[in-house]
């Protein structure tokens, strides 16, 4: 049988994959995709906890699902702004590789 632990483990693995992507990849667009993976891992554990905590009325705890709704909305806005910044940067530098964009490097 599947317990809450399995969902939390899968969520942790997805988060680690996204984190590895942010650390390893050098293409800004792929880094943004890996960020999306991390946000989705958080969503998965929130929904798992929502299903795990059944209220007295017999319904799952919908507060967590409202929170996931907000996270998805903010993620959509974040991706739109991030990709607009990438396009502006590409116009300026003709690259999406983070190793070529070191103006702020200490």
């Amino acid at each position, binding site marked *: 049988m*599947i*317990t809450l632990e*399995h969902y939390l483990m*899968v969520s*942790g693995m997805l988060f680690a994959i996204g984190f590895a992507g942010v650390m*390893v990849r050098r293409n800004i667009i792929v880094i943004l995709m890996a960020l999306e993976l991390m946000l989705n891992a958080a969503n998965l554990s929130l929904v798992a906890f929502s299903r795990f905590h059944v209220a007295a009325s017999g*319904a799952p705890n919908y507060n967590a699902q409202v929170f996931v709704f907000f996270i998805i909305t903010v993620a959509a806005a974040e991706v739109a702004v991030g*990709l607009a910044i990438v396009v502006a940067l590409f116009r300026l530098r003709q690259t999406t590789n983070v190793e070529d964009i070191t103006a702020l490097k200490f």
Partner: protein
Amino acid sequence: MSPFLFWFFALLMLIFGAAVIINRNPVASALSLVVSFFGLAALFLSLDAYFIAVIQVLVYAGAIMVLFLFIIMLLDLRAEKLRKINWIASGGGIAVALALMVQIFSVVEKFPAAKQFFPPLPKPASDDVRQIGLLLFNNYTLPFQIIGIVILVATIGVIILSRRETR
């Protein structure tokens, strides 16, 4: 949900999630991300979160992925030229991610409630859209309005950022 379906969709999600960061071609990464999101939507369905599963497919697999693919095509990114991979940096990044995963696992292991099964639902959660809507407009009215302003600001910001400078 049967354990077989859970493991099928969880492995689908994880394998294609790994494919996102392994592929060198950004278009292949974006398409792997779509498959990964569909696996995640199936996991949401297994948790009786029908509304979340639907907006996951609509917003992520629909809107956000179209945005990613559009930008990749617009910038005409080819597969990365075979730059020399910095193996020390890559290995370090993967090691940090693995350490994080081990930490998450050890915390989950020490969490006794996680060993319990999911309590059964007395009645199917098929009216979850109504329940989430009620909660959204009764308890979370102010956050809902703030999120509207966030989207408005993001829209204006994107237009200003992508406007061509006219000098």
